[in-house]
């Protein structure tokens, strides 16, 4: 550990997008307790493009769940846009996930029985957006990811790359501040993976904070900031090129 604050974080007077203060996550109790994260301190500024890496079991998934407000830390504070989310009710957390966070998963996680359009509409349905407005907005984001020609198809009729683009459209539909992508290229060939990464970069260029969780260093190096997690601690937090040197030093 030992990297106090991100160098990118101090670049303005604005509220950090995400702040973790002394976050610890323990699973289980007593003898069988497993510490997944220990005293994590992180600050992510709005508009950053961050890659989180680490070997399996390092705690990166736990970290992603906490950042995505799917779970609560055992101790410590998580501030999203200045708001302490560890104290929010379940319903407020759901609303936060719905409006501020867009998830992109490795296995796409689309609803198989529903059309592409419907899949993208769900976050809007949960947000209580009326049907006509919903359709319009869903078509807008599907156009943005180049999937507008497939709205009536079902997920299983699409290729992996197409499915992931639909999933990104779903993540975008409520205009979130953060995109949380968990191994988004893990199930894709390199060409499709490249397309997805290009999309994420485009979203970042639009000013959205993108957090990419991956174990693939090649992909991680596309980000501008790298956070490496090991044994529940932040092992490295800094620029991408510096990390490469550090990596070479420790084979």
């Amino acid at each position, binding site marked *: 550990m030992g990297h106090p604050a991100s160098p990118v974080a101090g670049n303005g007077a604005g509220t950090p997008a995400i702040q973790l203060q002394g976050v610890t996550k323990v699973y289980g109790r007593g003898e069988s307790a497993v510490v997944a994260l220990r005293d994590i301190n992180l600050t992510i500024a709005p508009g950053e493009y961050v890659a989180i890496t680490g070997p399996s079991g390092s705690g990166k998934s736990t970290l992603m*769940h906490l950042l*995505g407000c*799917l*779970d609560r830390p055992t101790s410590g504070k998580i501030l999203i846009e200045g708001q302490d989310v560890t104290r929010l009710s*379940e*319903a407020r957390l*759901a*609303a936060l*996930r*719905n*409006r501020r966070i867009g*998830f992109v*998963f490795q296995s796409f*996680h689309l*609803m198989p*029985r*529903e059309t592409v359009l419907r899949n993208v509409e*769900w*976050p809007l*349905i*949960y*947000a*209580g957006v009326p*049907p006509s407005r919903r359709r319009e907005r869903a078509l807008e984001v599907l156009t943005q990811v180049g999937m507008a020609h497939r709205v009536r198809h079902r997920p299983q009729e699409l290729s992996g790359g197409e499915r992931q683009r639909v999933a990104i459209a*779903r*993540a975008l539909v*409520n205009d979130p501040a953060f995109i949380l992508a968990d191994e988004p290229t893990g199930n894709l060939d390199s060409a499709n993976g490249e397309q997805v990464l290009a999309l994420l970069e485009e979203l970042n260029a639009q000013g959205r904070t993108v957090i990419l969780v991956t174990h693939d260093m090649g992909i991680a190096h596309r980000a501008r900031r790298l956070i490496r997690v090991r044994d529940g601690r932040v092992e490295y937090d800094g620029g991408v090129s510096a990390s490469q040197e550090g990596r070479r030093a420790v084979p």
Partner: protein
Amino acid sequence: MRTRELIGVAFGSIRAGGLRSFLSVLGIVIGVAAVIALVSVGQGAALQIRSQLTSLGSNLLTIMPSARTASGGRVSQEQLSGLTMELADELPLAAPAITAATGLVQSRATLVVGARNLSVGVMGVGEAYASLLNYRPIAGRFVQPRDGRERRMAVVLGFGVAQDLFGGEVPVGHDITLVFGGRPVAGVVVGVMEPKGALFFANFDRQVYVPAETLVARGLVPNRMGSYLAQTKEGVDVDDAVAQVTFFFDRRLGEPGIVQVASQQALLDAVRQATGTMTLLLGAIAGIALLVGGIGIMNVMLVAVAERTHEIGVRMAIGARRADILRQFLAESTALSVVGGIVGLLAGWAGGWAMSRALGFPFVISSQSVVLAIGFSMAVGIFFGIYPARRASRLDPVEALRYE
């Protein structure tokens, strides 16, 4: 989440469930179908009995020897022998509430016409019988007082009897033979009655009507009336009429309690009571069927929640609140059981129609039973869906997402 989306998702899941959805609601389908069909037949039967009672003519009283035992162990023959046709003639004069009355005796005989013969019920009656029952001859005439006084075997045929023995021919004036237990008695056809059908266990159309006095005088039946029918005056209180008739018979027979007087209202009450008992039984069947059906729904919903754990995790990640998940699964269980209820309703409707048809009852589907069927199946869906839906809504999003 809005109702439209809820219903859309619910029916999507039911369709996707296919055979499994169908099997899970079979309990509801069978339960609702059984209740609808049985209630329909029960109401049809009650309606028919009521309309038959009404068709008997309004304000009828039945006077029967009491089943009650006397001091000697049973009502003596001597006391019963006081039950003559004359009492029926005197009753309207003595009891101001009564307009007409007749005595009745019953027997069986074989009717012989040429080479043909037919076993029939023989009803010994007085003239008032036809008017009391709104029962009219379509050919010839009914039994008249003179037939009785002259001890003539004037025979009026029920519609069915006339059809069977004479076909289309009008048999008035035809000589026939009635064989009572091997003893032939000559008679002549004086009339044919209109078709009237069955009432309780007696079919009017399969009987013949002769003067009661003739049967008694010729020793073809015991020397007394089997029962009496009396008609009360329009607007007279039934209880008053019953009291007057009871008083008359008790005085004439010299001892109270030899006969019992029953009003049609009492019969109607008995029918209503029987119908009520049946409704209660049907309610019990319905309750058990819906319980079993509900357990089927709960079972399939628990399976659905387990299977869709991952989907629930995804929904939570994209912003579904626990309440949204709860509502989604409740909508699904409710839709499932309401579909079952509707299918059961249609099946019960068809079944009730077929059974009424077969039994010759009028077909009745009350709007109440339709509303109850749909309402109850909806309630079952909600009640038995709550537990699985709560289970779904309480899943931990991280655990659910990890579940494959």
